[in-house]
């Protein structure tokens, strides 16, 4: 029983991070209908940049983080200006393929700049474990989870109560109607991407500090965040959080019990199995927008 509780709590903690990563994907999808396949690449790139500032250039960790956040805002605006805008009016699949290419490009640049090794992110949160009854949680997991929840609440409130949040939802519903209401679609895209990349920076740095700074972070964007996004619903912010926690729980609990039986490796497959099941049983996800059709 204790083992189960331990797995459960660990699953919830890591699930919060997965949810945060998925949040970046949902933000971009919600406003522009683009599935950003470069999200993992950005996660990895921004984590590497943070490590580079802190470990290679020796800047204090908080300054490195701030610099990376500033860079991510610029990167988001840059993506809208140089990648999305030339492709306005083209089929959505073309734009998605371009993000795929961008992801590969980022991975290539990372290997050129920092090689293929694994490094450790300089510590900014203590790694000591604290005990909650029979369960031990490493402090930095708890902090990461807390930051994820905080950002979630912030963003959900933003979407519901601010004008810009409403503008993003309107743009994702119907671009022509948005323009007819005076909403600048270009500005909304730029702002959504900037938001999404800031989230990518935060979740990338958090993930790298929990695990390691490594090119495999790029895979997290697809193999973990995509099942979370599908489970929660492509357009749903609360869905990303709930989906993340569910995927985290299944992954750690399932892996914890099955890995010893099969010699390891099953943990990574679980989110993908979940994705298959979701697509078969309830493709809209838990909170996704259903297609409304008038007959």
């Amino acid at each position, binding site marked *: 029983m204790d083992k189960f509780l331990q797995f459960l709590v660990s699953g919830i903690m890591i699930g919060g991070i997965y949810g945060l990563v998925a949040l970046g994907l949902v933000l971009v999808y919600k406003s522009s209908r683009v599935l950003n396949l470069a999200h993992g690449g950005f996660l990895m790139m921004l984590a590497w940049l943070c490590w580079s500032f802190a470990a290679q250039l020796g800047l204090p960790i908080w300054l490195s983080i701030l610099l990376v956040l500033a860079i991510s805002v610029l990167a988001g605006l840059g993506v809208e200006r140089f990648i999305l805008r030339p492709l306005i009016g083209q089929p959505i699949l073309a734009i998605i393929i371009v993000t795929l290419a961008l992801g590969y490009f980022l991975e290539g640049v990372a290997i050129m700049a920092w090689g293929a090794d694994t490094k450790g992110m300089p510590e900014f949160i203590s790694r000591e474990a604290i005990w909650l009854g029979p369960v031990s949680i490493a402090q930095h997991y708890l902090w990461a989870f807390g930051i994820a929840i905080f950002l979630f609440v912030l963003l959900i409130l933003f979407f519901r109560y601010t004008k810009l949040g*409403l503008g993003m939802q309107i743009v994702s519903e*119907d671009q*022509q*109607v948005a323009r007819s209401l005076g909403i600048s679609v270009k500005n909304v895209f730029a702002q959504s991407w900037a938001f999404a990349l800031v989230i990518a920076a935060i979740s990338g740095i958090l993930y790298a500090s929990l695990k390691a700074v490594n090119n495999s972070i790029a895979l997290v964007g697809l193999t973990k965040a995509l099942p979370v996004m599908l489970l929660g619903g492509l357009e749903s912010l609360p869905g990303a959080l709930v989906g993340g926690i569910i995927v985290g729980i299944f992954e750690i609990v399932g892996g914890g019990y099955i890995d010893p039986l099969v010699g390891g490796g099953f943990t990574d497959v679980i989110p993908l199995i979940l994705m298959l099941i979701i697509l078969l049983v309830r493709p809209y996800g838990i909170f996704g927008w259903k297609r*409304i059709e008038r007959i």
Partner: protein
Amino acid sequence: MLVMNAVEVKYLDVILVLAGVSLEVPEGKIVALLGANGSGKSTVLKAISGLLETEEGRVTDGSIHFNSIRIDRMNPEDIVRLGIVQVIEGRRVLEHLTVEQNLRGGAYLRYGDLKRDFDMVHSYFPRLKELHHATAGYLSGGEQQMLVLGRAMMAHPKLMLLDEPSMGLAPLLSKEIFDMIQRFNSEEKTAMLVVEQNARAALSIAEHGYVMENGRVVLDAPAVKLADNPDVKEFYLGLGVPGQKRSYREVKHYRRRKRWLA
């Protein structure tokens, strides 16, 4: 207030849809724009509101002026800022958002408390008050049409462009919509350009009317004169000689061809 001068519009640089359209909408008046399907009526509205660029269309000749400001080269967002709002045809509600969010979208460029604006819209369309938190996509056709009109009203426009407001609606509901349009015009003094297939209803609320065919304006007269025009009566109002049964054997196109362009 609005002056269109010999406007030519092409889609994708090769498809000529408007071949020199000139029309005027005076301040505070309702103007009707009639014509068969495909005559270019929606394109006229989109040229004014700037939404042509969302459909790969461009004004290639002529000019459009709104209160002496040239608008045919402007972004749709800036044109809305000037006070011109188009209600796109086909009841384009924001389906997954609530009625309230749709209305807030209409007031996007305005600031401050929207309570008075909600009350105004509810005074025209009481049904929307009950539906304030309903999901827009599940509303009936008539309710959706009320919603898109209400959305336009929220912006307090100086000029409203209405594209087929009665399309697909039951006759009673259609009458209600036209009554509300006329009331909004008389109370808020908003000028309106109404594109309609329902010529009778449109001419009953308009001061002036234009008839279009194949991208050109072919008739231009005060609404009462248009309603009395025998050609308009036969081709748009469905009236034959009173007292006589319409024989469909007689309705052969080559017998009485209307060639305004000849």
